[in-house]
């Protein structure tokens, strides 16, 4: 079997960046910050409602937060990839209208149709990238927090605080990550 070539042309690299699963550095940072924040929010509930002391359970909380943040970030990435294509299809007309409105008539005559289509595609990709990130964060965070609240305050309410925290955080983050791998949305 021939070895894979790692030398892509500039166009191919741009296509991979726009339509592949990999995230840009900026997107990764945004996702991990969101994931850490949403994984740290439950600490408030466990400290004030389940009466778990922060200092006594510091190691458990740190491990739980990092574990949960990893799976939530993974879910962000998967959900964003699935949503981007759908959003891009829906925004075609709106983006085209925006660009046509911005360009004057003379400008519009100067540039070729191919150039115009490329600009629309680039702008559409930019909009879809931003919207899919925002919607993926919202959707994933909602799912994670709902699962966490249901498990911690309903299903495992009678458990003592430490097992409650472990089961709820591991369960909620794992299920959120697992559901994100589904391709049907």
């Amino acid at each position, binding site marked *: 079997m021939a070895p894979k070539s790692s030398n892509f042309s500039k166009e191919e690299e741009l296509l991979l960046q726009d339509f592949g699963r990999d995230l840009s550095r900026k997107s990764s940072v945004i996702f991990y910050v969101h994931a850490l*924040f949403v994984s740290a*929010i439950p600490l*408030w*509930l466990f400290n*004030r409602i389940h*009466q778990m002391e922060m200092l006594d359970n510091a190691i458990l909380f740190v491990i739980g937060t990092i574990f949960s943040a990893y799976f939530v970030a993974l879910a962000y990435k998967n959900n964003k990839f699935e949503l981007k294509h759908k959003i891009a299809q829906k925004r075609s*007309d*709106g983006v085209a209208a*925006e660009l046509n409105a911005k360009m004057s008539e003379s400008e519009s005559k100067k540039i070729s149709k191919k150039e115009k289509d490329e600009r629309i595609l680039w702008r559409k990709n930019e909009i879809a990238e931003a919207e899919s990130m925002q919607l993926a964060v919202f959707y994933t965070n909602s799912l994670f927090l709902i699962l966490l609240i249901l498990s911690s305050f309903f299903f495992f309410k009678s458990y003592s605080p430490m097992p409650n925290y472990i089961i709820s955080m591991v369960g909620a983050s794992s299920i959120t990550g697992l559901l994100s791998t589904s391709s049907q949305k």
Partner: protein
Amino acid sequence: MKYCVLVLFLSCFCVVASEESSAKLILTKNILNSIITQGNDLAIEYNMYNIGDGVATDVELADSTLHDTDFELISGKMSVKWDRIQPGTNVTHVVVVRPLKSGAQNFTSAVVQYVASEDSEPKFGFSSEIGEVEILSLKEYNRLYAPHVVEWGMFGIWTIPSLLLPYMLYYNSKTKYTVKSKKN
């Protein structure tokens, strides 16, 4: 033959005479609280029923199972006396105590002493047992039953940057590009 009939009749009469006018007390002990918490009042109710056909006199109820080290007496007495309890009637006594410790607590029987009939020896009886009951600590009680309105309110505020903000950004962008396409 006549002599036998006479003896039989007299023995029956003696049996009937010995069972007349004798009291019989039944004592029940119940906890009125549904949740028992350390530091919160606990009401214990004692019900005494005279199911006999005689008057019970010199009735004394005593519960020495609630030690000072475990319970603080708030209201009522642990030792109570009644002069008489008529047949077919009942009396109720309530004691309010405050548990000083949390954990499993065994509530055993109280004791009643009474005179069942005139010139008879005092009788003793035991109440029903409640058994082992879990007394919650204040921390555990707050964890399970307090409303936590402030905590949930603050949680709602913490979730704004994670939920509301991303959705608002998405919605604004969606509205902007949907309106544009409809206009054209």
